């Protein structure tokens, strides 16, 4: 399968003195150019680990298995020199706290120019021009290039970070909670900016956020992660407004729709806490917090099943729950659920 990004069976295990901690367990993702894919999840769900793994930014000693194809090239087996080039030119990341990672004693323009000069994507004498162009692109006046970071507000700094990420014209942008710390109005500005950039430049965007409502507004498809696995995946609107997995529906209900009488004076959440990744429960990892739990859940860790498939078993959506569509049949029909699905099975 081609496409911009194709992740197959990604497993990431942090190794520490206390033992191995699996953070990502068998994640599959794919993204076409000009598309936006959202990854939703709470802290500890492994969503940021996925982002880091895509560019091999994980700490040394972390075990990563599976395949990460970026434009057909496997990031995991890439040589260092190639990886360095890929990190700006092929894909770049905008992190949550990114606006704090600007060097306070250097001018904005110089910092944006840095990746350009390092990678030599633009002839030296055109660099200034390109910096001005990038600043315009993210909605800042070109004169801002002369300013130091402290002269800018948080939202402006985040724009600068996006300009830096765009500097080498990457084909993929990974936005890891890129708007989380920002005010709603600034967040709306940044989201509109990102959307426009994806549309105009035909780049792919992987947007990682805990906020399902933000993802539903910006992304075409959304994958919901829980305890290192994708538990539901499908078109954004459907996943958010008609979730199939109980965790996805709890997450969706946690962001109330204003004007919806059902959520008025009735905040909804999930009892309990996310599982300890070092000591996950048997069977379905969501079992201890699930309202629909059954005995079978303790033994079966369901793979992603198609949700409400059509006659030939096709569906745009998949969810990892025994209550979903063909899930129950799958379990009852086959002795081991692992054999019923082909490549989605988690190990």
């Amino acid at each position, binding site marked *: 399968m081609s496409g911009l990004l194709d992740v197959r069976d990604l497993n990431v295990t942090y190794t520490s003195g206390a033992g191995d901690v699996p953070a990502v367990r068998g994640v599959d993702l794919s993204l076409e150019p000009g598309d936006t894919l959202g990854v939703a999840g*709470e*802290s500890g769900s492994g969503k940021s680990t996925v982002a880091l793994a895509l560019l091999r930014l994980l700490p040394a000693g972390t075990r990563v298995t599976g395949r990460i194809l970026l434009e057909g090239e496997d990031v995991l087996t890439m040589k260092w020199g190639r990886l360095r080039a890929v990190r700006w030119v092929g894909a770049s990341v905008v992190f949550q706290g990114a606006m704090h990672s600007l060097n306070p004693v250097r001018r904005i323009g110089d910092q944006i120019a840095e990746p350009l000069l390092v990678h030599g994507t633009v002839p030296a004498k055109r660099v200034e021009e390109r910096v001005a162009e990038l600043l315009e692109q993210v909605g800042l006046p070109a004169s801002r290039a002369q300013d130091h970071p*402290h*002269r*800018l*507000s948080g*939202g*402006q700094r985040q724009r600068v970070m996006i300009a830096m990420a765009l500097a080498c014209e990457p084909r993929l942008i990974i936005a890891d909670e890129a708007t989380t710390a920002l*005010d*709603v*109005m*600034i*967040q*709306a*500005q940044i989201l*509109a900016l990102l959307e426009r950039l994806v549309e105009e430049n035909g780049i792919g965007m992987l947007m990682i956020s*805990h*906020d*399902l*409502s*933000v993802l*539903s*507004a*910006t992304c075409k498809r959304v994958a919901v992660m829980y305890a290192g696995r994708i538990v539901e995946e499908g078109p954004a609107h459907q996943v*958010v407004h008609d979730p199939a997995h109980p965790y996805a529906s*709890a*997450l969706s*209900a*946690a*962001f*109330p*729709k*204003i*004007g919806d009488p059902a*959520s*008025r*004076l*009735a*905040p*909804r*959440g*999930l*009892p309990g*806490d*996310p599982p300890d990744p070092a000591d996950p429960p048997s069977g379905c990892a969501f079992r201890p*917090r699930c309202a629909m739990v059954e005995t079978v859940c303790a033994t079966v860790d369901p793979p992603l099943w198609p949700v409400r498939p059509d006659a030939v078993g096709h569906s745009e959506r998949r969810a990892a729950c025994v209550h979903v569509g063909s899930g129950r049949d799958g379990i009852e029909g086959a002795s081991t659920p692992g054999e019923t699905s082909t490549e989605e099975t988690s190990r």
Partner: protein
Amino acid sequence: MSAETDPQTSTVGTDTDETPILRAEAVEVAFSSGVGPGGGRGTARAVDGVDLDVAAGEIVALVGESGCGKTTLARTLLGLERPTGGRVLFEGAPLSHRSRDLRDYRRRVQLVQQDPMGSLNPRRTVYESVVEGLRIHEGTTVDEYERVARALSRAGLRPPERFLSRYPHELSGGQRQRVVIAGALILDPEVLVADEPVASLDASVRGEILRLMLELRENLGLSALVATHDLGLAWNIADRVAVMYLGRVVEVGTVEEVLSAPEHPYTRALLSVLPDSGVEEGPVVLGGEPPDPKRVPTGCRFHPRCPVLASGEAARAGVADMCTSVDPEVLAGGPGHRTACHWAARVGGPESPRTVEGPMSS
């Protein structure tokens, strides 16, 4: 159990005759000097004349973007900040800033902060963190253990024995915030002032903490003022909402009034940018950055960013001059839907009968 609250109970606190338990009266807080992101020097008018009432058993949400002064107002209501103008009244009596009076006041009005990790001392166990307020006010008491256990179970940490000897880093984010709430509950307060109580919590835990606050109101009659940037939170738990912009409340009313039929262009813009807002005319993304409290614009403080003024609608209504030259009146803090906007006052909301603001002495 308390998830369903019928509409009657939600309007309990909005009885006009009752003295509000907590009241801000023309409160102003100004900070001098300091260098902001714009590099300007001078006096920052963080809170610039705010009236706000919290009735007994009422939850009021104070909504605004960062830098609008909501945190400063919350701190002022707690007596952590001294107002440079106006006053804070508790049960109708002005708050004295003498240290002994403040001490008594702080038994009855409690704070819940944004970051539960930061608001617990990493070197203190849960027991010690919860008992702290009790030790401050009563010293070591005979029934200390029972009271700590009761506060913890009220905050939803059951059974309490499991948590007593833990340290904050051994708890999840939601559990930490429950410990903070238990620490506030141990003194049997009447009002909680919460500053972004769930902003740093995971989405699934957020609902649980908000539900706890509703339960506390139901079971203990606790009032609350919740400062937040999250309009969804207001919809989830608040009875009334006050929208703050640049140190001033620009719109106040019940949650249904303000969030379902917003009048102020700023409130409308805030609601329209929410994902899934369903506003027909699409999101109104305000340009620019939140303005600098050191340089409050003349006239209506929102006018430089106001979409209604920019689109010429205000001029058609004949208020454009007023927008740039006349500062709208400070809104009264009690019940009723009020908007500090010349245009909204002229045009009038299509459905809601307005409380007409006469000249007010503050």
